[in-house]
């Protein structure tokens, strides 16, 4: 398989704090890569560096390279906005735009950028909501506020909003941790379904979830990438002692 993302000697500092230490990692196209590890191990920090979300944090400093196909994400002449159009993100807490309807939330990426073509919107909304299996639940109330949906529905709406702008990579930062088990199951089914079209990197603190949804698992500890490999192998026959201790629940 082709390598979609390639992290080379990635280091991230927040002021004096060295949060991510010299990480090398490949992410294959149309696969699901899970990043696991205890709280504070740097997994979310790595994820957020892939679409330059740290640009907003003045104290953050990212060094090394992240290649998205042939583009260096942190290259000198690279606009973070174009990167973020190719690399979408789903956040831990569902964050639909509260002032917008369900319909407007799905096309928010177009509306906020002022590039929506007339007549396109209906088609984008319907296909995006169908892809996240939300269409049947909301098709009769598309004009109502997005905040009236349940947490799980909101999160699927956020995924619909993300895929509506046709990214190549979707980053998911613990997308189901604020949801109930049934909503979680739906999100996991959705991830399985989405990987045929997108490359997905998911951070999770739920190891069963990582085992269920991912093809490759990366284990982080104290800012370092301890082990990365095929998910089945990492969970059944890890190479490193630390990985084994973590997945068997001895610490974390």
């Amino acid at each position: 398989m082709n390598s979609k993302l390639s992290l080379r000697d990635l280091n991230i500092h927040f002021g004096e704090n060295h949060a991510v230490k010299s990480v090398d990692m490949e992410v294959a196209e149309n696969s699901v890569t899970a990043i696991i590890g205890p709280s504070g191990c740097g997994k979310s920090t790595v994820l957020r560096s892939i679409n330059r979300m740290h640009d907003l944090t003045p104290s953050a400093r990212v060094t090394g390279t992240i290649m998205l196909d042939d583009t260096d994400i942190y290259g000198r002449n690279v606009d973070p906005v174009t990167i973020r159009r190719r690399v979408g993100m789903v956040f831990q807490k569902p964050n639909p735009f509260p002032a917008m309807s369900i319909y407007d939330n799905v096309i928010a990426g177009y509306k906020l950028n002022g590039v929506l073509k007339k007549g396109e919107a209906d088609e984008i909304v319907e296909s995006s909501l169908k892809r996240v299996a939300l269409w049947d639940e909301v098709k009769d109330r598309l004009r109502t506020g997005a905040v009236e949906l349940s947490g799980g529905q909101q999160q699927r709406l956020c995924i619909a909003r993300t895929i509506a702008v046709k990214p190549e990579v979707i980053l998911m930062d613990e997308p189901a941790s604020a949801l109930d088990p049934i909503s979680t199951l739906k999100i996991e089914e959705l991830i399985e379904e989405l990987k045929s079209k997108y490359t997905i990197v998911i951070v999770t603190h739920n190891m069963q979830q990582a085992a269920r949804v991912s093809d490759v698992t990366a284990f982080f500890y104290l800012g370092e990438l301890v082990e990365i490999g095929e998910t089945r192998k990492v969970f059944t026959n890890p190479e490193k002692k630390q990985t084994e201790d973590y997945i068997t629940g001895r610490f974390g």
Partner: protein
Amino acid sequence: MNLRSIALRRVANGAATLLMGAATLLVLLPLIIIFYHIIKMGISSINPDFFTQIPRPTGEEGGGMANGIAGSAIMIGMASLVGLPIGVFGAVYLTEYGTGKLSTTIRFCADVLSGIPSIITGMVAYGMLVVPMKGFSALAGSFALSLIMIPIVLRTTEEQLKMVPTTLREASLALGVPLWRTSIKVTLRSALTGVITGTLLAIARVAGETAPLLFTALGNQFWSKKLTEPMAALPLQIFNFAISPYEDWHRLAWAGALVLVVLMFGLSLAARWLGRSKHS
């Protein structure tokens, strides 16, 4: 615990409640006195003439403050036209882009500016506009009012923008929306009711300002034809009429005071109503 100490505690509790209740009433008292007094003195002169006529020459009964009301509206409008965008977009810059020393300095300056007595703002406008233009004018008055408005709008808007959750900004950015569009279409949009509340309070504040207009707009007994002429304003007219020796001018001043207070009260109520409906 024995009964004696419980009884003692009840007495102490009752005394403290009474004391705080009395203090609250004392806070309300000045407001009630002001309203009562202004209504009592001013209500008799409130009639259609007051809103449609300009002041009559001394000795002639009747007349109104139409030119003052219009002048206030014009100058507040022009001050808002300049002050509101500067205040609001300045606040957007401070919260969304500003980091480090520059924004700390701007914030500090805004605080100092809002603490400057308004008569000094008026003197500055006098020096900057009235002297070079060789005459008092509505423009100079508007300029002085906008100077008072900017720091108020800046700081209240900034507080409102800070309350917008980071996750919303991130949601927009992650969709490939540039920061400047995110700032305006997501962050400012989410805080809009709060921002409008803040601007209404700022308008209410400058509507009652007299001192900065003394050296700038000066006041006018007649309708002003140009913005480069002296212009009447409600608080100025109240001031001039109240210190005049004529009984009927005093009554007009009271009526003007009543109109001004009702206007400010209305703006404050509108601001409160907007602020509340956001949370329900």
